């Protein structure tokens, strides 16, 4: 009985703390808008640590390829550093994991070259989730597509199903992994949208590493979020929109 009351007290305290943080956050956001909209505007509200994610939010990002002078190299480098992929000691270059890759294409008529970072597009109807035989590939309530490596058997079916070539397989025993980003032999991995950062109320690391105004991260379900407003006003492209996957990652300038 005591324990029940105690946990109830605790949860109300947490809710109060959350409310205070939320209101505090609102104040900061309003102040930030007037100061420097592109740098300080925070789209992500931290949820309390002990609360489950819900489908009220759907995380997504919008990347403006015209504002990426390096074609997304800085974003790729930041991802490598955050998650520690790309330098597996015994993997051949073709085997190295690639959570984000820089893709360049040229318009034959105009000779205009465009580069864009391509990572897991966090589809609403993800083919990788459809084909997974164990349920390891799944979509979290807030729209982030992940691999549960605890039950992944490494069959690589999802890698074949993904039209974006977004997933990689780890072939070797690894050491020195990042505590927030476990990765290991025999499992498939891909962009997690920096889920460990989102749960803390931070932005994905590639968004922070991108040049100013080149990339926006936010809640696609909230019509008032910066990303939703931009999408509503200007629209944006999906890669392989013909597949009808309703991707969470959208681009300008492709």
């Amino acid at each position, binding site marked *: 009985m005591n324990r029940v009351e105690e946990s109830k007290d605790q949860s109300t305290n947490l809710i109060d703390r959350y409310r205070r943080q939320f209101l505090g956050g609102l104040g900061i956001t309003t102040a930030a808008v007037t100061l420097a909209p592109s740098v300080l505007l925070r789209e992500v509200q931290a949820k309390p640590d002990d*609360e489950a994610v819900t489908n009220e939010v759907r995380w997504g990002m919008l990347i403006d390829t015209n504002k990426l002078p390096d074609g997304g190299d800085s974003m790729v480098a930041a991802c490598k550093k955050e998650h520690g992929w790309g330098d597996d000691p015994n993997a051949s270059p073709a085997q190295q994991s690639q959570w984000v890759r820089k893709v360049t294409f040229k318009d034959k008529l105009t000779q205009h070259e465009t580069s864009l970072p391509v990572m897991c597009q966090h589809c609403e109807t993800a083919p990788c989730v459809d084909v997974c035989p164990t349920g390891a590939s799944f979509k979290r*309530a807030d729209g982030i597509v*992940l691999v*549960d490596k605890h039950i992944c058997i490494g069959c690589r079916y999802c890698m074949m199903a993904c039209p974006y070539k977004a997933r990689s397989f780890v072939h070797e025993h690894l050491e*020195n*992994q990042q*505590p927030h980003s*476990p990765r*290991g032999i*025999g499992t498939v991995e891909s962009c997690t949208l920096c889920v460990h950062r989102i749960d803390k109320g931070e932005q994905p690391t590639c968004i922070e590493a991108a040049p100013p105004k080149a990339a926006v991260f936010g809640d696609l379900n909230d019509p008032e979020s910066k990303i939703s407003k931009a999408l509503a006003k200007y629209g944006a492209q999906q890669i392989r929109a013909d597949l009808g996957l309703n991707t969470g990652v959208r681009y300008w300038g492709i």
Partner: protein
Amino acid sequence: MPASPTIHRFIIMLLAAFLVGCDSNPPELMAATKVFETEQQTKLHIAEMRTNHMHLLTHKRDETMYSGIRTAKHSLNACIDCHVPMPTAQKVVKHTDAEHFCATCHIEVAVKLDCFQCHADRPALKTAEVAK
């Protein structure tokens, strides 16, 4: 043909005799970096973890994976941060060393430990610095 009850009883007695001879004292483990406020808390923690750590970790694992619940309680990273010493230039304790907190018992009882194929087996320098 089913075995007679006498034989059953004999087998059970034989097994019991073996069990009495077993030594249930765990091997000496490396000390944790943090200490509980009271000794009672420490004792409770040890008793609970000795029997249940695998269940608690599995439960927490699914909560974190599927629901994004990232409290420190029963989180593998929190265990590691407290029970495994921070790596230094002189010494890095890895899960393959017998003195590693998890390895000591798992080697003793010959239970294979898969966690560290993917998870970090020692505190990251950054986390440890923040904790200070």
